[in-house]
């Protein structure tokens, strides 16, 4: 099982060799927000000239509200808890005192999938908290869910 490099793991206090695996090569074609949204050819962030944002999705006063609106635009609703629920897929939006930092997507297996930043690899991790903490992406600010419609491997 391939894991992130030791240097990259040091940037995430909760990551260990045993709670994640690398699932893609590194690339800068998309970020975590886009990955959880279901696209892999754009960097999504609200209100930034060289970032993409889907037409029709409102840019709210706070970035967190903007991300909630983003995922709501494809059928997610705000939810409690990150446990696997039959028939639902979930996204978790992370942040810290300075604002949102990350989003992760729950897989059908119950594991979570994260694109690490703008440049690193995709990983699968066993809990949302595996990429949380400081240093790391902070804590889960909001979980959202929608009926699982896509077929997954």
């Amino acid at each position, binding site marked *: 099982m391939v894991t992130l490099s030791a*240097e*990259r793991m040091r*940037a*995430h206090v909760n990551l260990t060799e045993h709670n994640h695996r690398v699932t893609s090569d*590194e*690339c*800068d*074609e998309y*970020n*975590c*927000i886009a990955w959880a949204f279901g696209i892999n*050819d*754009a*960097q*999504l*962030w609200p209100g*930034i*000239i*060289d*970032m*993409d*944002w889907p037409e029709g999705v409102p840019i709210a006063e706070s970035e967190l509200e903007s991300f909630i609106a983003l995922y709501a635009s494809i059928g997610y609703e705000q939810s409690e808890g990150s446990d696997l629920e039959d028939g639902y897929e979930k996204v978790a939006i992370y942040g810290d005192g*300075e*604002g*949102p*930092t*990350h989003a992760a997507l729950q897989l059908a297996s119950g594991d979570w999938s994260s*694109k*690490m*930043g*703008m*440049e*690193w690899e995709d990983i699968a991790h066993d809990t949302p908290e595996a990429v949380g903490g400081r240093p790391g992406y902070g804590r889960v600010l909001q979980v959202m869910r929608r009926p699982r419609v896509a077929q997954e491997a």
Partner: protein
Amino acid sequence: MDNTVVVYERPHNRNIRGVYISRKFALSIAQEVNTPNITNIDTVIEANFAPNVSTTAREYRTETRTVGSDWNQVAVYGRDSLAAVTRTRFQELAARWHADTGGISAPSRIVSHDAYLQIISMGLDALPLILEDLRKNGGYWYPALRVITGAWPVPAEARGKPRLMKEAWFLWAREERGYDI
């Protein structure tokens, strides 16, 4: 000595960052430190122990000798070597920036990194190096490119799409700057 670059460090004033200084000041320093064999100084880099510049200066040091009460001459080299110093400094900063921010998605945190700001402060000297790094390593260089050049050659439909934004910047660099990229 035409096309000469002289690097000095000022051992008693180590809290000043390295800067390029004027030809007039360069010549005055040359006079001060009594280096009559240097008659045509193009640039003097005032170097000290600020992390990046001093590292660069030490790497390129050919000899260190005391040439006055306040100055140590660190190195003498030609104009081509100045580009090498710039490249080395850029590569050090860019490597640190990639390592520290590659796992971050929030744009404001990526562009506020100290190394990124130092690269922007290098101005147009950094432009070909940024484009080269963008092609080789990728990364969120677009704000730095905008700030340094004042240009925004990315069409609306390419916004936020790195593959298309890179193509737009490389085309701009070829057409507007004559870069071979």
